[in-house]
């Protein structure tokens, strides 16, 4: 409740503010500022439209919170794009390869493999063979399935099939060798894989190479084998037929 003194004080205050009113001049100045601000914001949106090549008036300045949101979206898109490019490059990095086939019959197929044991590319020695390999759709298949498909396709040539598996990672290499020999054996092939014989049980020629043609290594077969069969190493002739370690440079 306001008493008389309060009422008096209120009246005095009202009188003190009686001169403080919106003058016509202040009103005119305010309207002028409003129009100037409208023109300015119109010019800004026009400049933005021209800069972006959009038709006149098509671009309106975004409010602050929208700008922040748009920036966040752009940053997220950039991060995902970088992750995508990085992931693609990571996936397509070759960490191992396997060369399988009979070099004498020009049926060597190379499978390039990534760190996830997936086939990232295939290469065949002949154009027609490449077409056949492409038809198998080995790309992106895991190596075990790719080998099974390949072994079952009959593209690897006759009974005698050699393989060379190479990887920077010894664990991966060991796995790939095991998969290769199992698949080839399963398909009735025999030969060497990284110099070690596989599928020889029925032949009784322990320690002997299977190759009938001496010195026909896939790359530089020297034919310097000392056993009954000359070596068919892909890189080096392995005449001794012993189990060689990978990358064995010993002739």
């Amino acid at each position, binding site marked *: 409740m306001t008493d008389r003194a309060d009422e008096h004080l209120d009246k005095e*205050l009202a009188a003190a503010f009686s001169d403080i*009113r919106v003058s016509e001049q202040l*009103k005119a*100045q*305010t309207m002028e500022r409003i129009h100037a601000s*409208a023109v300015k914001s119109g010019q800004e949106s026009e400049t933005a439209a021209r800069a972006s090549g959009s038709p006149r008036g098509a671009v309106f300045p975004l409010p602050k919170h929208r700008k922040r949101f748009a920036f966040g979206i752009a940053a997220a898109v950039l991060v995902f794009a970088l992750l995508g490019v990085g992931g693609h490059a990571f996936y397509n990095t070759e960490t191992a390869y396997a060369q399988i086939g009979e070099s004498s019959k020009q049926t060597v197929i190379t499978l390039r493999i990534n760190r996830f044991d997936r086939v990232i590319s295939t290469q065949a020695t002949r154009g027609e063979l490449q077409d056949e390999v492409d038809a198998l759709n080995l790309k992106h298949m895991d190596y075990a399935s790719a080998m099974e498909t390949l072994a079952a396709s009959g593209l690897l040539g006759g009974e005698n099939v050699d393989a060379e598996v190479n990887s920077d990672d010894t664990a991966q290499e060991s796995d790939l060798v095991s998969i290769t020999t199992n698949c080839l054996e399963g398909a009735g092939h025999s030969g060497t894989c990284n110099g070690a014989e596989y599928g020889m049980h029925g032949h009784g020629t322990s320690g002997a190479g299977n190759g009938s043609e001496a010195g026909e290594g896939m790359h530089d077969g020297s034919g310097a084998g000392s056993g009954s069969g000359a070596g068919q190493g892909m890189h080096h002739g392995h005449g001794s037929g012993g189990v060689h370690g990978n990358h064995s440079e010993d002739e």
Partner: protein
Amino acid sequence: MRSDADIEDAIASYGDAVLHVCVARLSNRHDAEDAFQDTFVRYANRKEAFADEDHRRAWLLRVAMNRCKDIQRAAHSSTIPMREATDAPSPSCGGEIAERDVLLKALDRLSEEQRTALVLSAVDGYSVPEIAQMMGKRQNTVYSYITRGRRKLKKVLEHD
């Protein structure tokens, strides 16, 4: 942007109250007019519709108060005492002017909130619930601002 007629209507309806709050808060006519103009520029650029007339009035007063805070924060503002905030006195009524100057000078001693609530109540005739809506405070708080503001103002005037 809002139409000129809409803006002029807002100035006609609430312009004085906005200016009073600005003057009460800033104690400087020039800054108060700046805050007044900023408030109506923002009003002109506001695209969203108001729920009702109370909302429009409360929005205008709140924007004005916030704009005053911004101006105060900018330390460049040179504070001129309240009595310089009013228009130049006319020489014919010297006694009244002197009395008004004393009152406005005394008003400077109140807190911003007390000044705002008291001016909106005593000068513009708004009720406590209306002021509470404009200031974004509870009614009891506003009532307390007004009561304490009056008490303090009386005390200052008695001492002067």
